[in-house]
C-alpha cells in the first residue's frame, strides 16, 4: 500500500496573455471522472481580447521569417510531447498518435507559409499612370476562434493559419474535450510565442462565443466549431455590428483559412524625377 506513489495531478486552467489563470468567476466544470477544466466567464473572454490586442502590434510587426521559425518551434515542442498528447486524446493508441503526428505536420506546413503568402496573394498592379502600385496581404487583427470538436488536430488546424500571418487570437476550446487544448497551451508557452498571441478559453461555447462574436475589438471570427445552426446564425448576425470577417464552413482548401483573415492593402507612389 505504501509503495504506491500518489500522482501529482495537473490543474487545467485558462491561457491568457501567456499566463495560466483560473477563471475570474472561480468556476470549473467536470470533463472526465477525475478532471475538471476552468469554466471561463465573459469577463475572461474580454480579458483575453485585451491580451490579444496588446500582442497584435508586436506579432504582426515581427518578420515573417521569425513567425515561421516560431511556428516551426511549436511543431518541435509538440513532437516532443507526442506520448503525452496521445495519452490525453485517449482511444486506440495508434489513432491517437496519428492525430498528434498530423497536428505536428500541419504546423510545419503553415510555418512555411509565413514568408510565402504575400508572394502568392500580393500583386504589382500595372496602373495606367506614372505610379508604383503594390497590393499586399496583411493580418486583420484579433480573431476569435471557436475551435472544432476534434481536440488537438482541429485546434491546431484553426489556430496555425490565423497566427502565421500575424493575427492574434482568442480560442474557445472544444467544450467536451478541452484538456488537450490547455496542454497545447503549455507547448505554445515554451515555443517563444509571445504571450497574448494565442489565448485559450475553456468552458461553455454558448456562454463565450456570442460575447466574442459581438465584441467590438475583435476583427475576425472563425465559427468552424460552432455546434448548433442557431448559435452559428446568432454569432454571424452579431459579427455584422463591426463587420468582422467571418469564416463559417470547415473549409480547409489551400490557403483559404489564412486569407479569410487577411486584408489587402494597396500602396500608391508617384514615379518621377
Amino acid at each position: 500500500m505504501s509503495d504506491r506513489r500518489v500522482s501529482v495531478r495537473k490543474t487545467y486552467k485558462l491561457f491568457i496573455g501567456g499566463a495560466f489563470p483560473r477563471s475570474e468567476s472561480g468556476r470549473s466544470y467536470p470533463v472526465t471522472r477525475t478532471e475538471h477544466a476552468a469554466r471561463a466567464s465573459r469577463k475572461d473572454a474580454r480579458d483575453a481580447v485585451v491580451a490579444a490586442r496588446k500582442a497584435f502590434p508586436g506579432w504582426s510587426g515581427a518578420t515573417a521569417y521569425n513567425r515561421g521559425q516560431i511556428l516551426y518551434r511549436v511543431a518541435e515542442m509538440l513532437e516532443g510531447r507526442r506520448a503525452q498528447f496521445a495519452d490525453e486524446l485517449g482511444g486506440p493508441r495508434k489513432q491517437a498518435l496519428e492525430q498528434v503526428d498530423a497536428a505536428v505536420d500541419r504546423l510545419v506546413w503553415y510555418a512555411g507559409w509565413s514568408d510565402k503568402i504575400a508572394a502568392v496573394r500580393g500583386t504589382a498592379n500595372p496602373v495606367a499612370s506614372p505610379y508604383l502600385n503594390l497590393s499586399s496581404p496583411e493580418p486583420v487583427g484579433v480573431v476569435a476562434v471557436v475551435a472544432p470538436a476534434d481536440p488537438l488536430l482541429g485546434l491546431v488546424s484553426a489556430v496555425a493559419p490565423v497566427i502565421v500571418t500575424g493575427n492574434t487570437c482568442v480560442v474557445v476550446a472544444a467544450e467536451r474535450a478541452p484538456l488537450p487544448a490547455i496542454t497545447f497551451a503549455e507547448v505554445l508557452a515554451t515555443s517563444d510565442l509571445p504571450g497574448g498571441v494565442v489565448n485559450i478559453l475553456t468552458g461553455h461555447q454558448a456562454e463565450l462565443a456570442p460575447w466574442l462574436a459581438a465584441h467590438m475589438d475583435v476583427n475576425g471570427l472563425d465559427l468552424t466549431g460552432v455546434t448548433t445552426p442557431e448559435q452559428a446564425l446568432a454569432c454571424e448576425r452579431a459579427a455584422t455590428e463591426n463587420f468582422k470577417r467571418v469564416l463559417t464552413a470547415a473549409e480547409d482548401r489551400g490557403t483559404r483559412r489564412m486569407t479569410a483573415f487577411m486584408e489587402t492593402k494597396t500602396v500608391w507612389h508617384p514615379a518621377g524625377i
Partner: protein
Amino acid sequence: MFEYAPAPESREIVDLRPSYGLFIDGEFTEGSGPAFKTVNPATEETLAEVACASADDVDRAVRAARKAFGGWSGLPGSERAKYLFRIARIIQERARELAVLESLDNGKPIRESRDVDLPLVAAHFFYYAGWADKLQYAGFGTKPLGVAGQVIPWNFPLLMLAWKVAPALACGNTVVLKPAETTPLTALLFADICRQAELPPGVVNIVTGAGETGAAVVAHPEVDKVAFTGSTEVGRLIARTVAGTGKKVTLELGGKAANIVFDDAPIDQAVEGIVNGIFFNQGHVCCAGSRLLVQESVQEELLAALKRRLGTLRLGDPLDKNTDIGAINSAEQLARIRSLSETGESEGAERWSPACELPERGFWFPPTLFTGVAQSHTIAREEIFGPVLSVLTFRTPAEAVEKANNTPYGLSAGVWTEKGSRILWMAERLRAGVVWANTFNKFDPASPFGGYKESGYGREGGLHGLEAYLDV
C-alpha cells in the same frame, strides 16, 4: 485673380426622355411602384420621371437574370470578353453624352465626369473583359456564383456601375443592379448600351427605385451574391439581412481618411493633394481625405497656403468646363453637411471658407475647413461626405499613426513626406485598404480598392476584384 468667361459644355448631346422605365430581360418595362422624379441638383429642374421597381418587379428582374445565367455562364470566356470589349468601346464612343448626363443628374463638374469618371468606366470594362478568358490563372477557380444583386450610390453613378457590372459579367454571373434614386439616368443609358451591344437579354437588369427596391434586391432568395457601395449604416443592415443565408457579400462603405502631412513635404504639392483629397467631387467620396493631420511645425505655413489655394477654386455650373466644385447631390445631403458643420462650430472648432458666391437655385456648399479640431469632435469622427475638411495636428510619426488609425473606418489614408523610409514605415502601420503616398484619390481598374474594419468587406478592382464574383 483672373475673371473667367463662362465655358459651358452643351447639353444638346443628351437626348433626355420625359420618363424612363425599368430594364428587365432586355426590354424597358413599366414599374409598379410610384414613379419618382430625378432633378438636376445645380438648378432643381426636373430632368425626368423614373419608374420605381416594387418587390414584384425585382422578382421579375431576378428571374430574368436567373434564366439568362445558364447561357451566359456557359459561353466560353473569350466570347463573354468580346461583349465586354464591345460595351467598353461603345462607352468610349458615347463618352461625351454619358459625361454630360452624369453631370446633369449628379451635379459634379464636367471636368471630372469627362476626365475622370468616363475614362475609368471604359477602362474598367476593358480590364475585366481581358480577365473573362483567363480566370484559371487568377487563383480563385472559374465557377461563377449565379445572380448578383448590386446596389450602388449616387457619388460616382456610372463608375460604381462599372466596378460592379464588369467583374460580375467577366466571371460569368448575371446582374440585377439598382442605381441610387437621385442618379438613375446614366445607368438607364447604360441599359441602352447593353442593347446596342446586343448583350443577351437578362444578363444585365436595371431596377430603379429607393431603399425599398434595394432591400428587395438584397433579400431576394434567388440572389447568390450581394454587392453594395454606400453608407456604413445601410451596409450594416445588409450584412445583417444576408448573415446566415450563404450569400456572398462585398461591401464598400464609409471612411474618414487621414491625410498626413510631414514637415519635410513640398508644401505646394501637399496643398494640391489636400484639395484633391477633400474637394474632388464635392467631397462626396468615401475615401476622401477628410481629416488633415499636419505636423505642428508646419501648420501655419501649410494652412496659409491651403487657404490661398481654396480662394482660387471656382464653384458653380457643373457643365462649365472651368468649374472646380459642382453642386451637392441632393437637398437631403446638403442638410446633412450643414448640420454636421454646425455641430463642428458648436463643439468648438473654428470654421473657415473662402469668399465664395453660391448660386441662388440648387444645392450648394462652399469649400470649408475647420481648425482647432480635437479627435473627440463629431467632425473628426463622422463621415460628412461633403467639401468639409477637419484639420488636426501631430508632433511625431507615432502620434500621426495613432490618430490616423483612431477611427472605426479603414478605407484610405494619405502620407506626404520626402523621406522614402518614412513612407514605408507609415504605410506599414496605417490600417487602411489604400494608402496614397505623395498623392491622393488615384484610381485604376488594375488596382484593388476596399476597406479595413467598418469600411466594408472585399476588394474591387485588380485581380483581387475577381474573388468577389467567383465561387472560391
